[in-house]
């Protein structure tokens, strides 16, 4: 036998007491683990969006409030398509890569699909050179890539998924999002009918993990004609590559197009960032609460335990156990409680996060493994600190009195 066996036998003798002793800590740690796990993945999602869209500017109809950048064009409002020409013929730097879109939900083979009309670059890019000689004096910042001869062999789907703009698309061609292609069993080269018009699928897009996976992209003018919405777009995405240019763009575009709402991805994620900060602060508050409550609960339980075991402690002393041994037994028990509490809290918290993450933050959440060590560390610290005084009390118990009292 060793002291660990001794401790475990005592701990598991009364399982209900074991659970109630650790409950405050387990629940508190679980909440911290859940909040931290959700905010970790939320931050990753934000970071991914910022990486992909960080320099992008979105031009929307006025008074549109959106929470999701990717579905910003589904708000139902409209802008005149003329705004595209206004942008391209303006002398504003950084508006060469535009992605004007018009989205309409339709039904294809009984499935709800978002049909997104997108204006290919080749139909408006030329207008950027209508500045005359002035076009040469614009600084080379967010300029277009000069792959005129397609030396990089980029295909339509690559440009759309990587850059969110499309170079060319014919009036009867479509690009299909990954998820909808799988659902409707569509492949490149197939034909598909939308609103009673046949289209040829020129590409099935790779999975992006965004709403684009459920879209079918067609020529903007085709979508306008099919949906009878006129010469309008629902959003114009200015696809930038440099954040420093994007910063200046908002003011310039707002001045050129005063009847629009011009926003950046960072404005949209600001709400999420604030929520994450709030959750982080909450978790800190929880940490303080569990330290106090959990610590008090453990201290109380330990004192009671020492009191109940005073005869046992007196016997151990009579058998030759030193004060140090008694102290060690109590503190080791606290260590075990701490480890169990941390483990239980981590598992419970992770389960909470996996279930609640998609509802609270709209993201997929996975276990964060380093939090296991944090959870156990915090739990052990609380348990050991809370048990120190009960352990000292036990080590200084008068064995004579202990043996007599019971």
């Amino acid at each position, binding site marked *: 036998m060793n002291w660990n066996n001794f401790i475990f036998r005592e701990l598991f003798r009364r399982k209900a007491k074991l659970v109630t002793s650790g409950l405050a800590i387990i629940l508190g740690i679980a909440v911290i683990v859940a909040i931290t796990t959700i905010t970790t993945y939320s931050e990753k999602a934000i970071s991914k969006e910022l990486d992909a869209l960080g320099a992008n500017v979105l031009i929307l109809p006025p008074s549109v409030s959106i929470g999701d950048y990717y579905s910003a064009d589904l708000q139902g409002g409209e802008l005149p398509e003329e705004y595209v020409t206004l942008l391209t013929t303006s002398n504003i730097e950084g508006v060469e890569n535009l992605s004007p879109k018009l989205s309409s939900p339709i039904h294809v083979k009984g499935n709800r699909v978002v049909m997104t009309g997108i204006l290919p670059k080749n139909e408006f890019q030329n*207008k950027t050179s209508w500045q005359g000689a002035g076009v040469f004096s614009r600084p080379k910042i967010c300029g277009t890539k000069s792959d005129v*001869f397609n030396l990089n062999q980029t295909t339509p789907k690559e440009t759309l998924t990587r850059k969110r703009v499309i170079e060319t698309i014919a009036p009867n061609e479509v690009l299909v999002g990954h998820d909808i292609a799988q659902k409707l069993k569509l492949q490149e080269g197939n034909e598909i009918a939308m609103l009673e018009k046949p289209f040829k699928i020129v590409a099935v897009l790779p999975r992006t993990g965004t709403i684009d996976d459920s879209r079918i992209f067609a020529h903007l003018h085709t979508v306008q004609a099919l949906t009878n919405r006129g010469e309008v777009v629902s959003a114009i995405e200015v696809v930038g590559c440099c954040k420093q240019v994007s910063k200046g763009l908002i003011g310039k575009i707002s001045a050129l197009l005063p009847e629009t709402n011009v926003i950046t991805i960072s404005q949209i994620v600001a709400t999420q960032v604030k929520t994450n900060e709030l959750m982080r602060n909450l978790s800190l508050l929880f940490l303080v609460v569990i330290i106090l409550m959990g610590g008090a609960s453990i201290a109380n339980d330990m004192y009671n335990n020492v009191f109940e075991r005073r005869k046992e402690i007196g016997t151990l002393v009579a058998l030759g156990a030193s004060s140090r041994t008694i102290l060690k037994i109590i503190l080791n028990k606290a260590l075990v409680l701490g480890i169990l509490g941390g483990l239980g809290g981590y598992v419970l918290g992770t389960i909470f996060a996996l279930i609640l993450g998609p509802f609270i933050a709209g993201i997929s959440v996975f276990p964060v493994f380093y939090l296991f060590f944090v959870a156990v560390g915090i739990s052990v610290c609380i348990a050991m600190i809370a048990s120190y005084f009960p352990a000292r009390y036990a080590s200084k118990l008068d064995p004579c009195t202990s043996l007599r009292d019971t």
Partner: protein
Amino acid sequence: MRILFSLILSLWLTTTMSAQNSNTIEDKHLFIFFYKEVNEKTQSQEKVFDEAMQKIGLSTKFIKVNVKDQTQQALIDKYNLKRTPMPFVLVIAPNGAITGGYSTFTEEQLRNAIVSHGTAQILKGLQDQKLVILALQNNKTKNNAAAMQGVSDFKADPRFSTTEIVVIDPSDTREHTFLKTLSLDTNITQAQTVLIAPPADVLGIYQGPTTKKQLVDSVQNAASGECCPGGKCG
């Protein structure tokens, strides 16, 4: 009246492609004022337009087109103006290059839309989605032939056979404003070659002799390079 006007426009459009440094009527820039309806904006811009045309004078021709006029639809489709905010001014050089397109404009902007011959040639090539090589040389610059050798070899490559080559004399003062926009020195002793890609990206400036490899490398680097200051994006 409308028929006469259309005839003049057609004549102008069909003859401008062949006009080269002459003082005929075809050498003039064409200013087209497009409008849809007679509203406040149209009237105020039209006023600016009219005054500018009067002041600029003989080096321009101008016409006004109502986009609702069915007889003008070919013109509107040619320049893809169906979804363009009105009023709109389009400025077309004698060789067909568009040297200005404005929804809101000032007299100065209209004046600046009158470009040099060299500028118009370069803009035309770029607007036709071609690579353009500007060969800056005259009888005083050195290595002219060596500079053109690389250019010829480059154009001989089937991939780049559509490249437009524009020769400009660096001492031609009419081109100096344009050359300044490209930050090119006009007091050169060696031939200078500039490779430009659509819409208006200068891919490389080469002093003296050039090689095909230099030019091809510049095209390939541009196709794959980063577009931001210091190469840092995002």
